């Protein structure tokens, strides 16, 4: 029963992947990503019968980090920096959607070829992880805006986290290490903001200089 609940959540996450690929609006992309983050955070709670503090920590950190904090920062960056809300695709929306769907199907097929432990055999974790990683890649390669690349990176990371859930019982350290990736995302966002602020100052300075000149 727990397993099928988990599978429904993973199915939802995979649906959000396709949503992220198909949308042409930045806020929608960020929303898809943050909902996915929350879903991912809930998963470890469903997997464990008795709640371990480490598992709880991973869940809380994921929900707060991926679900609330990073999307909030991204929205703030979007507002302060006044980025245009339309995404500019290098790979069009329809091709990326089809690629994503093909990737999802391929992931499902590939999973059958891989040896899985009996307790993971019926789970969608592996195909979900592969599909999500692929989605992240398509977004990383196929979107030009810095902020959408950050979203792509985050989705890629979500995929890795999904895979990590397989190992959360046996080797929690590896899964927890994934939080460092969130830090990378934080640096990305910081970069966007710092860059824009710097540019704003630069332009301010030059204007001052010409004013003095005249």
């Amino acid at each position: 029963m727990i397993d099928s609940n988990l599978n429904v959540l993973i199915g939802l996450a995979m649906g959000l992947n396709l949503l992220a690929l198909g949308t042409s609006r930045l806020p929608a992309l960020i929303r898809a990503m943050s909902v996915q983050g929350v879903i991912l955070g809930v998963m470890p709670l469903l997997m464990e019968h008795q709640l371990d503090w480490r598992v709880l920590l991973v869940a809380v950190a994921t929900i707060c980090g991926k679900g609330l904090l990073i999307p909030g920062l991204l929205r703030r960056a979007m507002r302060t920096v006044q980025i245009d809300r339309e995404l500019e695709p290098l790979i069009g929306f329809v091709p990326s959607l089809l690629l994503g769907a093909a990737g999802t199907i391929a992931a499902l097929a590939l999973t059958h070829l891989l040896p899985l432990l009996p307790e993971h055999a019926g789970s969608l974790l592996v195909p979900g992880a592969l599909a999500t990683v692929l989605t992240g890649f398509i977004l990383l390669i196929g979107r030009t805006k810095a902020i959408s690349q950050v979203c792509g990176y985050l989705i890629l990371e979500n995929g890795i986290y999904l895979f990590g859930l397989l190992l959360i019982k046996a080797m929690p350290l590896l899964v927890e290490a994934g939080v460092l990736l969130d830090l990378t995302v934080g640096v990305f966002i910081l970069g966007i903001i710092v860059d824009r602020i710097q540019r704003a100052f630069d332009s301010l300075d030059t204007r001052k200089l010409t004013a003095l000149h005249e």
Partner: protein
Amino acid sequence: MKSLLLILVPLVAAALALAWPGQRTRPWLLPAAGLIHAVLSLWLFLEPPVVAADAWLGFDPLARAVLPVVSLLFLVSAWYAVSYLRIRAERPNRVFIAALLAVLGLLSAGHQARHLGLLWICTEAVTLAAVPLLHFNGTPRAFEATWKYLLVGGTGIALSLLGSLCLGYASLYGGGDGHLTFVALMGQGAGLSRPWVLIAWVLLLVGYGTKMGLAPMHTWKPEAYGEAPAIVGAILAGGVTSVAFTAILRVRAVVGAAGEGGMADHTLLAIGLFSMLVAALFLLGTRDFKRMLAYSSVEHMGILTLGASLGPAGVAAALFHVWSNGLTKGALFLSAGNLRRAAGSPSMDEVRGMSTLTPWSAAIFVAGMFAVTACPPFGPFFSELKVVRAALETGHGLATGLFLCCLLLAFFGLTRVVFGIVDGRPRRAAKAAGKRFKESAGVILPPLVLLGLSLWLGLCPPRMLADAWAAAVTQLYPTP
């Protein structure tokens, strides 16, 4: 204990640098921490400690074979950094110095990490710590380079985490109990699940290969090395890449223990030769002497990877090459930094006649160029000779031919750029800039020392070093 100090001393110094009030005196923290680090690592090199088999961190033979050269390179670069930061007094250096020290501490941790997860954490942390280093100049171009570095490097590092997880699953599937030290993984050997090991190998090779700068994941390198200060280039090219290389060696050992060593060697050979080829072709086209160094670095990463694919003798040669390449590249980067300062531009279209403007730096640059293109009697000649010998002994005739061709092409490319900027008559604008830049002892001696070390490595490498490399090889290829 001493091995822990190797990590802690730079990190404490980094914290100190953040708190240090004086902008002018702060750079002295670099050589101070570097000196302590170098003494410690030399001490550990001479008296290798006994490392417990299941220790997560330890100065094991592989760390002993590589870490001292990183330490040495850092020390000399730190010496150079003092003069460099005095010239660049207009830029705030608090974060830069702290990040540089943090990189040293994390590199030491990464070299000593004997645990799959810990190794990954260290590499990731180094990646993040290097970000302020690349952004030191604060120009839009530097930002672009930093962005590219973080995006490509971050993706690579994410893939290597996925690879680590796959390797973890391989162990779990084979009945492992969740111990992910490399010793435990190698002990599990053929018990590891083959399909998962293969997936893990591909992902880890791509992930850590990105960090090393192997083609086709090398795209961040030219931008990053082109825009970063010279010291950063030297430490990235000599230190950070070596951590990724040892990571690949450690993973290769696990894959070998799982019985897929042949396949791993084939992929290493292919990706190594491809990197060399790509780098050689780009070297023929580049017109920027700092980007040229980046492509040369890609080429040497290819040589390392090629060496790693050739069995025990090849790995020993590759470890030798880590030393000779690191030191020689350091000399090149530092002297290139001088040239760049004096000339005001990194492009050979605008720079000419540096031999009259900055004779010392130009001389070191030319000598370093000859060293790095494997002209005797410098270190790289002997290490590459060993790689060739290992290749011929293992019957890779075709690969050897290709290897030598790439070296020749790289030689053409490098000499074209180097003599283009050294020869001729300097432009008038460059003359004025060159006057402002003084070739003080602080910026000439460090690259000279590195070049001397490279020469020493070629002419009379100490017996101890060869023993250290051999010990590392036995660690990676345990005789059953």
